[in-house]
């Protein structure tokens, strides 16, 4: 007997998180939630390191502050605010929906299908929209303030 033919592995992999097809927005919010979660985590780690300088000598604290006044760090700070606004509000949406609330009841599938996420669009996207609003307010603050 001949050996069975090798099957081609066809997993989309991590690239599939970034682009998987013309799906609705939630599939990409999944990726964004993960990225922002890791971003905030990274911020906390850096934050922890920097604040320990404060307990050491004054010079090292000031040196650290000097670096943090760099515009790139300002941008980073701004991104952390955005990430936090998005992650917390979308996290709230996930907690509610993953416990099956606001998803509606199972319904007979009659064409055109309206699945549970499509039914709860209004309020779930309102949460994400609020995150976008907060982002805009802080963008104004970031550009005008400093």
């Amino acid at each position: 007997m001949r050996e069975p033919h090798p099957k081609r592995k066809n997993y989309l992999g991590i690239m599939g998180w970034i682009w998987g097809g013309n799906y609705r927005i939630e599939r990409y919010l999944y990726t964004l939630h993960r990225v922002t979660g890791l971003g905030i985590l990274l911020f906390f780690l850096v934050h922890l390191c920097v604040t320990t300088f404060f307990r050491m000598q004054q010079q090292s604290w000031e040196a650290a502050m000097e670096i943090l006044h760099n515009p790139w760090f300002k941008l980073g700070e701004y991104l952390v605010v955005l990430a936090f606004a998005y992650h917390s509000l979308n996290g709230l949406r996930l907690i509610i929906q993953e416990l099956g609330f606001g998803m509606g009841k199972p319904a007979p599938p009659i064409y055109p299908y309206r699945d549970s996420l499509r039914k709860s669009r209004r309020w779930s996207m309102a949460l994400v929209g609020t995150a976008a609003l907060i982002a805009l307010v802080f963008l104004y603050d970031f550009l005008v303030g400093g």
Partner: protein
Amino acid sequence: MKELSSKNITFKIRRYNPEKSNKTHFATFVVPTTRGMTVLDALLYIKENLDSTLAFRTSCRMAICGSCGMLINKYPHLACHTQIEELKTKTVTVEPLPNLPVIKDLVVDLSPLFEKHKLVKPYIIRADRPEMDNPTAEFAQSPEELESFLQFTYCVKCGICISACPTSATDKQFLGPQALAQCYRYCTDSRDDGERERFLLADSENGIWHCHLAGACSDACPKGVDPALAIQLLKRQLVARATNLLGKRELTPLVTPPVHSKPKLPFPQFTVNDKTDAREG
């Protein structure tokens, strides 16, 4: 009858033949299409007229058997359930479903789906084994109880939800939307008492907590099964049981069927007489 006007559409099909090469390539075919023609019709046209070596799976050609799932213009569809016209493109790319191993051309190996489906024990489980084997009565189930899972019974095991799911894209072991939705379908059936067995699996490392509600499964499911809803309801059931918020589960009672049933209806008259059967002339 008026001839239907025909339009030439280019089909770009991702081909893979492990006997020749371990690489894939796109083959291009031009197919004259008419209104109402499906992508499956075009594939059959190619196989019959242009290249008989093209491999794809099909059976029912009416969205019932779940054989013909494929990636059409970068979105998973049933080929028999997708009209070429609705795609609104001059070129149609057809590729095998991602997140499943490819055997040849557009034929994917669905056995990971079937194995995971089997794992969730997709059948009624009850403690009263003798009654299951030799039933003396019927399970009473109200229409509301039926509707609580009916939608999820329409699954045709096509694998489209698995190819849409971003978790399945990176995690081979993940049970996947199809199996988890069927897990809920049986757990919430009022006749079933297998919750504890299935929860063990759903709550496992490869189970339900890897679902982060991307919702792509429900977006793509060609049968309107809404696996994402089933999975979130299953999460809720798990949390409710763990926190004891739902109280005890009530199984439907056994109801003895009426002893004196109505007389059977007489068998309908044949409309075609035996002797004048068309076959005999």
